[in-house]
């Protein structure tokens, strides 16, 4: 998979938040074989040094880092957060979140496009957290985004793909654009479905971190992503309404 001229071996991207311990996080990443980890920037008190400890932990994961602007509700907040993240993580990559609604954490489409344009002009490579809206997708591409990250469902819900028609339409409208289903997945079967539909990757966090056994769930998702991708590449059969025997009829005993 190629994202902004970078080859990434795995089609599973994993968040680093909400794990019961750093050791569980590390084990979940190992068993997921994820190639990209999402991270954030947050305030720190002088003597806390939580940032330094976390920085050491994620560096040891050996994966590509994708900082986010999670929690930002305005263009200005998102742009400044992205600029701070670029300096901290030394990467032009940014998962751009501009949240427009508190209960659904739905992206603010207007702010998202504006922030994407500003950041692209400043040399960022923007991964916009967006909806399945095809018009918005077009605007984001016009603003300079080369990857799209449509939601499956609202962040942290685990509801899976709530608008299959919309996601299918989005995938079909921009067949050449790398797309990552980001947010809302709860089960490996939902990730497999996204991959079968032709999405290039999935990004999860809560589904793994909040599972009873995060590392085992991480491996479950990894296998589902591989299975779904294989199925997509294998060109699935067309469904049909009427039964069709799979065992040959010719040569049957007792056939008159």
């Amino acid at each position, binding site marked *: 998979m190629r994202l902004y001229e970078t080859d990434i071996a795995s089609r599973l991207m994993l968040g680093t938040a909400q794990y019961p311990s750093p050791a569980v996080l590390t084990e979940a990443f190992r068993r997921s074989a994820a190639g990209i980890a*999402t*991270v954030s920037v*947050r*305030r720190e008190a002088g003597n806390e040094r939580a940032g330094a400890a976390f920085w050491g932990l994620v560096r040891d994961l050996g994966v590509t880092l994708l900082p986010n602007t*999670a929690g930002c509700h305005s263009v200005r907040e998102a742009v400044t957060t992205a600029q701070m993240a670029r300096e901290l993580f030394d990467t032009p990559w940014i998962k751009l979140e501009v949240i427009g609604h508190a209960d659904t954490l739905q992206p603010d489409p207007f702010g998202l496009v504006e922030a994407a344009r500003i950041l692209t002009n400043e040399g960022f490579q923007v991964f916009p957290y967006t909806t399945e809206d095809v018009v918005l997708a077009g605007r984001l591409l016009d603003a300079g985004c080369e990857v799209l990250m449509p939601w499956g469902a609202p962040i942290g819900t685990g509801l899976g793909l709530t608008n299959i028609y919309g996601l299918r339409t989005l995938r079909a409208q921009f067949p050449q654009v790398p797309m990552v289903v980001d947010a809302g997945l709860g089960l490996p079967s939902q990730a497999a479905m996204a991959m079968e539909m032709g999405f290039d990757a999935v990004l999860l966090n809560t589904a793994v971190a909040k599972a009873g056994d995060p590392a085992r769930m991480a491996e479950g998702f990894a296998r589902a992503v591989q299975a779904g991708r294989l199925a997509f590449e294998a060109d699935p059969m067309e469904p049909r309404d009427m039964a069709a025997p799979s065992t040959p009829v010719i040569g049957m005993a007792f056939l008159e």
Partner: protein
Amino acid sequence: MKIMINGTPTETRAEMLDAVLEELGFGDAKVATAVNEDFVPASLRGQTALAPGDRVEIVTPRQGG
């Protein structure tokens, strides 16, 4: 003077942003900074003078989804 550090009113004797970081014990720490919602690159901290009431943000790498 009194400035806001990460949302908390803080008294400082320093006048420049790099001196504030030093005073707070961030001298060698991996942090990024903003003043009044504008990003201040590490290279410009020594030239960034603060005024009373300025809002300084000091952030570090953290868990994210």
